[in-house]
């Protein structure tokens, strides 16, 4: 069983599926000869040829829009948007077409496509390269938004996304592309979509996060354990649609919830989770729900980005306050 980083797992999932399913095609800027600026598509063109793995002109709306056309013809496009900061040019194609082709044709045409993009801060990248705007996409009916948080989950969730008969925006936390390695079987086994993963069982408080922030969240859970606070940690994984059952069951058990997100605070996924708990689990709460998040500011350029991103200390402080409530 090979040891893989998250980016290697992304590559392995695409390679596996291209090998077993001829309808899978990979497209995007620099995905061919160069293998992607992060090497997510490394070697795929050599393996599967220039027609199935191809560089597009530098045009994001085209990349997404032509994927809608490829999918309408029964292919399964896996399109890369080089950075999430460039995805907005493709938003019209996502919200007006990819998300609703099935609905608009009453199931006659569908859109089994994956739009991959590296997202999130923390790697000292230039402007427009560090946002976490998953909530914008999570608001769109008809698509799925999936974010892995480890190599094994990246592998299993990307396979599931490619096999899913509906469009998936697959956001890859680039801060942890190479942060950790783990054994990934590369056996074609997909993980389920639309469910959370409970990474750590606990009884005192539920910590919910996704993507790279699970690193800090798990570290915080360790620090809290040393203080005698037993935290349950949930990886949201599928941002849209949210697995309400797992969240509500956990909060029913612990009575407390802190949500950790590196996105801007207002109107985000953390707010949606808070609303779900308030609507359907209020009576199980022993303390207010708290969000530890980025701020309602532009993502700062890299000299100050650490001040924007939630830290382990901030999570621990927030949990302590909730426990003392």
């Amino acid at each position, binding site marked *: 069983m090979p040891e893989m980083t998250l980016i290697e797992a992304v590559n392995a999932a695409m390679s596996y599926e291209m090998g077993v399913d001829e309808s899978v095609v990979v497209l995007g800027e620099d995905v061919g000869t160069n293998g992607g600026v992060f090497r997510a598509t490394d070697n795929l063109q050599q393996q599967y040829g220039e027609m199935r793995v191809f560089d597009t002109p530098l045009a994001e709306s085209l990349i997404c829009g032509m994927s809608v056309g*490829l999918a309408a013809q029964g292919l399964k496009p896996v399109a890369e948007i080089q950075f999430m900061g460039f995805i907005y040019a493709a938003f019209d194609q996502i919200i007006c077409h990819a998300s609703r082709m099935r609905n608009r044709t009453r199931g006659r045409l569908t859109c089994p496509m994956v739009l991959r993009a590296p997202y999130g801060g923390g790697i000292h990248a230039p402007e427009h390269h560090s946002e976490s705007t998953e909530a914008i996409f999570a608001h769109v009916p008809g698509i799925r938004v999936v974010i892995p948080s480890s190599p094994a989950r990246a592998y299993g969730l990307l396979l599931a996304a490619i096999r899913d008969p509906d469009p998936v925006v697959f956001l890859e936390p680039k801060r942890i592309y190479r942060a950790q390695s783990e054994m990934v079987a590369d056996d074609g086994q997909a993980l389920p979509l639309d469910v959370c993963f409970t990474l750590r069982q606990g009884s005192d408080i539920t910590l919910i996060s996704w993507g790279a922030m699970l690193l800090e969240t798990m570290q915080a859970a360790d620090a809290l354990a040393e203080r005698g606070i037993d935290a349950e940690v949930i990886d949201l994984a599928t941002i849209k649609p949210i697995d309400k059952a797992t969240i509500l069951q956990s909060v029913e058990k612990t009575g407390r919830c802190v949500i950790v997100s590196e996105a801007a605070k207002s109107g985000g996924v953390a707010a949606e989770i808070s609303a779900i708990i308030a609507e359907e689990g209020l009576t199980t709460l022993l303390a207010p729900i708290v969000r530890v998040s980025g701020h309602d500011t532009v993502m700062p350029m890299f000299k100050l980005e650490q001040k924007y991103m939630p830290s382990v200390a901030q999570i621990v402080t927030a949990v302590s306050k909730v426990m003392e409530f």
Partner: protein
Amino acid sequence: METVAKFDISYSQSLNVSAQLNISLEQLAARGINHEDLIEFYRTMLLVRIFDTKAIALQRTGRIGTYASCLGQEAISTAIGNTMAAEDVFIPGYRDAATLILRGTKMEELLLYWGGDSRGMNFSINTQDLPYNVPIASQCCHSIGIGYAFKLRQQPRVAVVVCGDGGTSEGDFYESLNAAGTWNLPIVFVVINNQWAISVPRSKQSGCKTLAQKAIAGGFKGEQVDGNDIIGCHLKLQQAIDSARAGNGPHLIEAICYRLGDHTTADDASRYRDAAELEQAWKEEPVARLKTFLVENQLITEQQLESIQQQCSEAVEASVEKYLATETEAVSSIFEHMYQEMPAGLRQQLAQLETQ
């Protein structure tokens, strides 16, 4: 200094505004259009004209919603439908009744769509054609994916995509032309230049002398044709489609016609459009032009004209009856087509709605 590239844009017309054909009927037959075809061209254009009139009446009496008329676009739309092969894929805008009807879409399906029912785009015959596209020119990107799929699978099929003169100002239009040229895809772009993008005239839409020349920037040929001349449109479309099918890459045709109606039934073009201009446009319109040609050359009898008129009216009336007799979809249909399998959250929302 040396010239490194030179381009030209042609304009063609076969049946002029005085209903004079510039080639003989024998030559026309040699190019695939015989006497019976000309009568069928007339039949389709008249059918769509009657359909259009009926649709506006249905809107005015509250039986369909806002409707976008295709008045004045019958020739180019009919030519597209007649020159495409069944296995090709049509990527429409939203004034393409003639093309869709020729490809198998039922008139009652179009009425369902304009009547606010998504089943209208669930075409039963032309199942791979895309649905109407309301956001302007985004469909051009879809045609790239469809053309790429044909090329990938080495299928001799062609994608035909239409947009209007306003659509050629959109980024998606330019991105698509660029991509079509880059990959030499089997796509025919048809710009139906009806002179008006709601209230904005062609002169304010672009500084380009022709819209056809935008294809040059994409690396392939663009040309103009008289969009009120169904014979010229047919011949040009046939050439472009045959060429794309043979592997010679994309082509752009700018069909110059005139939007004789309002933008939609929610618009009043008299607010921004000169009555004299409209009056002139009516003298050039496509249905009367072909009819005059057929009558003057004794290619159609008075009896045939009456019979076609009656058959078309009956077909439209029958489609209206079918449309009006169609029950509204169950409320669950709102939820059923969001995903292949309904997620838990949607099941919960549907259950709540059904108990209200």
